[in-house]
């Protein structure tokens, strides 16, 4: 009944997600919030990307502090 992922698995997953979101956010930056009928909050997307990036950095720091 344990969670099957280790912190390093989660760290890798966070890194991949952060990269995807950061690239998406950068690509959408020059456009407005309205893409035809599709509307979204670009600022929130960027915030989510930055939070994930920061979370990844925290896991990297953890790896430095606790190498094993």
């Amino acid at each position, binding site marked *: *009944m*344990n*969670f*099957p*992922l280790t912190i390093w*698995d*989660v760290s890798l*997953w966070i890194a991949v*997600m952060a990269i995807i*979101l950061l690239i998406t956010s950068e690509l959408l930056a020059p456009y*407005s*919030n*309205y893409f035809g*009928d*599709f*509307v*979204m*909050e670009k600022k*929130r*997307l960027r915030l*989510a990307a930055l939070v994930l990036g920061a979370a990844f950095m925290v896991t990297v720091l953890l790896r430095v502090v606790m190498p094993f």
Partner: protein
Amino acid sequence: MTLPRTNEKSNNKGKNDEKSEEATVEYLLKAIEDLQKQNEILKREVLKPKRTPSGKIGFTFLTIGALMLLWSVLKTSTVLAFIGLGLTFWGALFLFVRPVKFVRGTILDSTAISSYTTIDRIIQDLNYEGRPIYIPPYPKEAYLPEYLKNLKEMIVVIPAEDILTVPTVDEMAKKQFLLKNPKGICIAPPGFGLMSLFENELGLDFSSCSLEQLCNNLPAIITELALAEQIEIFMEKGPVHAKVEGSIYKDLYQPDLIHVIIRDSIYKDLFNPERGLKSPHLFGCPLASAIACALSKAAGKLVTTAKNVVSSDLKTIEIWYQTLKA
């Protein structure tokens, strides 16, 4: 003997003509019917209410993801855990990036009409002919005695005559509507709310930024908020259009022109000649008024509209603002 044959022929020809005419009419009627149907479908497409996304996808992803995560714990499966984590995350993200509110542009346009009609009525009733003068407020952080606190509000003055004059500090501080010296009325600019929104969105106080900085930032935020398709701002040193004769401040005016081109404004319908509104040509639409407020605040000078040209298809609005140091 040939006469009946020719008659027969002409009769046949006439019948054929009638038949072909009927066929053409039928064909045309059918074509019109088809076009009308297409037109109806297109109208429905255009008028289809644009709603905020319902979030169904987000909730579905979130639920499936949570179930997968639970399952992965029960089965101790890494693959299920990754899938669950991914679905939960994307579900939460879809819900998070949903816009809070989405209002159609035509609604904004219709809400502005009543205030412009009211201003029109006031100006017509009082028979005032002056051009509006935007008066910049004192900066928020500036110290002012209690009785002058109202000077921190942005106002626009419509003088009785087309002479550039400003009311006395006392009159402005008392928040008076009808001004006596000089004769005129003092109201909150129609674009004041929009200007405050621009300040909030940019995280800037326009009174503490330069005109160049404002001209760089303003077009971006206006297009970002989808208030207009394109905005261009040019600084010009131009001729004096304002009539300043007879004013005690006439020696203090130093005119500068700022040329603004607004393309496909959301408020363009206010300039529609069928509406018969005069005040949008005086103040500009709420967007133009907001730009005037921002210019006045950034320059710390009085601003008035020197000239205003609207294209016949209402798509392009050109405004020349004039800054005056008084």
